[in-house]
């Protein structure tokens, strides 16, 4: 008998990494090999992660589709399910449904520069596409990553940040909010939008990917516009509340759009068409 849409894959937590206070990354492997073989996803997609008995929670797949055999997710402890997830151990089995949603059009970005701008816990949805781009580095021109967090302690993926910093085929600019720096902090100090303005990347043949808290996005868009970025070339992801993940439950409906189906990746041009209900 066919399983319903709502049946999750059973996933085993292979590895848990603490990224920042309250932020963890799980590396998940399929319990059934067959599931693993049938599974494919693309950068930008998300899933429903569940702790049995606690419920489901929506977040992106944070690993790159170029890395096979596992998926990763990064989440911040904030609600009932994420708290339960945080209470899981390595080796525990959790549920995962997905992949759902649209993708970052990496194919269309071939031959272009990519500017990644992320704030706080919003790096995970971008990490997937960053690694995807880095793993297929030859397809793209300059890659720039601007990442900021409230404080040094709140920066996630610290190991990867180090790695990106060392690589010479990617430019990484990290920043922390004023007051969030430590004595040995070598990165920038300041809010993300002003840092973007300061480093002034060229809009020429460039796509920008912006993920972060609403206030950061709100102030970054005008900066990008000033730098000459066109709305169609500015991408972001929406974080609406979702339940099913595939356009039935009605929760993520914004205007005629189902964020779970038509998103979560949107260009700024698309967002401008949407009612302000996200």
């Amino acid at each position, binding site marked *: 008998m066919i399983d319903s849409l709502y049946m999750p894959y059973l996933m085993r937590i292979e590895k848990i990494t603490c990224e920042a206070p309250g932020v963890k990354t799980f590396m998940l492997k399929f319990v059934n090999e067959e599931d693993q073989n049938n599974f494919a996803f693309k950068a930008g997609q998300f899933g429903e992660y569940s702790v049995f008995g*606690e419920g489901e929670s929506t977040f992106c797949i944070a690993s790159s589709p170029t890395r096979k055999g596992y998926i990763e997710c990064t989440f911040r402890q904030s609600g009932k399910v994420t708290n339960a997830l945080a209470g899981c151990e390595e080796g525990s089995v959790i549920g995962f449904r997905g992949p759902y949603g649209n993708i970052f059009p990496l194919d269309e970005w071939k031959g272009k520069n990519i500017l990644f701008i992320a704030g706080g816990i919003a790096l995970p949805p971008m990490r997937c596409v960053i690694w995807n781009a880095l793993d297929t580095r030859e397809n793209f021109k300059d890659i720039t990553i601007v990442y900021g967090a409230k404080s040094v302690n709140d920066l996630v993926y610290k190991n990867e940040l180090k790695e990106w910093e060392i690589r010479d085929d990617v430019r990484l600019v990290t920043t922390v909010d004023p007051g969030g720096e430590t004595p040995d902090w070598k990165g920038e100090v300041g809010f993300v939008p002003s840092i973007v303005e300061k480093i002034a990347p060229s809009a020429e043949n460039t796509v920008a990917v912006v993920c972060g808290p609403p206030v950061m996005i709100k102030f970054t868009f005008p900066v990008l516009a000033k730098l000459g970025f066109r709305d169609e070339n500015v991408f972001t992801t929406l974080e609406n*509340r979702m339940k099913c993940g595939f356009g*039935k439950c009605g*929760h993520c409906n914004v205007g005629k759009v189902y964020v779970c189906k038509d998103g979560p990746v949107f260009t700024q041009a698309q967002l401008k068409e949407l009612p302000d209900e996200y």
Partner: protein
Amino acid sequence: MNIERRLVRKDSLEKLFDILRQNKKTVFAPVMKNGKASFKPVGSFSSIAEDYIQTTQSSKEVIFPRVEKFLDYEKNGKEVSIKGFDYQSVTETVLWGVRPCDTIGFGTLNSIFNWDFKDEIFNARLSKTIILSFSCNKSDDYCFCTSVGGNPGSTAGSDILFTKLGADGDYLAEVVTEKGQAIVALASELFEKTESVEKEKFLANVPVKFNQEEIRKKLEKFFKSSQWVEQSLKCLGCGACAFVCPTCACFDIQDDAHGKIGSRMRCWDSCGYSQFTVHTSGHNPRSVQSQRWRQRIMHKFSYMPERLSVYGCTGCGRCSRACPADMNILEHLISIQEVKI
């Protein structure tokens, strides 16, 4: 297939009911309680309500139950085993006494549950349900099916539509589908051949109140209208309208835990609830009632036609009857139609 027309004597309905029961079919039919008609599994013909314009709730619950279990799980240390939806548990069900504005709603639900991903649980229930509907011979001021493309004698969505021919008359049975024919086959002696009957004159008169196409077009430019705030001021933010609606299908997914074992299920939800869209961070994209009221109307009359090519309203008027604050959808739609932009 062509609609086949038969005559069923008024005394034969009970026989038909008994035959359905003998064939081990669960029959849901309207039953009166506390002055309200509602669909319930019925064991005897006599308990079926007769004199009602409309049940308080739509019959969608038979196919889209308010609580639907998706899976059972059992934990054992770090391991988990899960058991999916039990399709065997879906048995042949007869929906008896549905109004045409309900049956048409099943089509809408079908679109929602299958427009992209296919919801097999919904489909299993729908495919196992035989819909025996009854035309409306009376209506009230809340009815407006004719404004949204339906009519009191519409066969859309029915397997067999019965129309009572006069106050004490027999029934015209219009056999619409193969499922309907299978029922006829069970009790062929009850379905007599008939001359052409003009059923229209036995139907309730429901005047057309607005043009839904016009409304749809209007709504495209209506998002920022102040009407939403004005209309919704008296809305109390409950979910009565959504839960009685034959086409509302929003749901929530919840777990029910008992130590190592438990289950996951969906429960009805409503876009009218303030918590419906709230993020874990506390941010609420639709934080005030006017936004939620707008969502309800826009979804039914603008978004759904655009995305699913169906309207989300069958004109049954249930939401208006159920509303504790007298938010009358017909009144509001008319006023939207009348507003000049």
